[in-house]
């Protein structure tokens, strides 16, 4: 079996991202759409960690800047989920629905 390369990880990451985007396009339930967004974020995390491991520095360690970025993404994503879900709850209270097709009133 061939040894693993960076491209394997990038491919896996890209496919995961595409899956997330397809989910955003297909699903109607706003919570599922939100989950798909998380999927896309994590796809980005995967490629970042792969790059981190790929760039071994002079000290023989991976490049940790990328991992710090991943750490920040996870933190921000957590905050985003909290706020997003709160908005969804507020929306549900007002409209009794979580289907995006039922929510069209922003235009007028």
């Amino acid at each position: 079996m061939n040894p693993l390369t960076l491209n394997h990880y990038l491919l896996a990451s890209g496919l995961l991202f595409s899956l997330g985007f397809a989910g955003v396009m297909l699903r109607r339930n706003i919570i599922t759409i939100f989950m798909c967004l998380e999927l896309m974020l994590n796809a980005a995390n995967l490629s970042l960690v792969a790059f981190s491991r790929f760039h071994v520095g002079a000290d023989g360690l991976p490049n940790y800047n990328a991992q710090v970025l991943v750490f920040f993404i996870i933190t921000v994503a957590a905050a985003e989920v909290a706020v997003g879900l709160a908005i969804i709850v507020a929306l549900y209270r007002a409209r009794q629905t979580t289907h995006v097709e039922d929510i069209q009133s922003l235009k007028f």
Partner: protein
Amino acid sequence: MSPILFWAFSALMLAFGVSVILNRDPVASALSLVASFLCLAALFVGLDAFFIGVIQVLVYAGAVMVLFLFIIMLLDLKAEKRRSFNKFALLGGAAVTALFVAGLLKVISAFPAGAKPFPALGVASVDDVRQVGLAIFTRFNLPFQTVGVLVLVASIGVIVLSRRQLK
């Protein structure tokens, strides 16, 4: 990481990802997402990023997904009705996704540096928690503080949003 594990975990991750978008029941979607995230954490560990893998499990698969499930159950969401998919959405989504994957393949094929195997580490075992901690508290201290403020603002925002009076 042995290639077998990589193939296994990435295949599982993608399979659960497909399951997320195909399940009509949001609870099933959420549980698939947890499984997908666990596989992703395994991939992180395979890349010697133990700290990231651990917080992936703790924060994502743990806290965030619990929050999702909690909200789904709070709102008592039923499975989406079996409706034919919007043709426009189906076509458009498929087209954009396909184009993206095609572009990705093109990039990867034209990226010879990425075709090399991962270089070996210069140390016997990585102390990545220490390294990430050092990076956060030295080079990235200001962003770290900023993120702290962001989290504070988000928690206040959530409190405000969840008050009953909100119209």
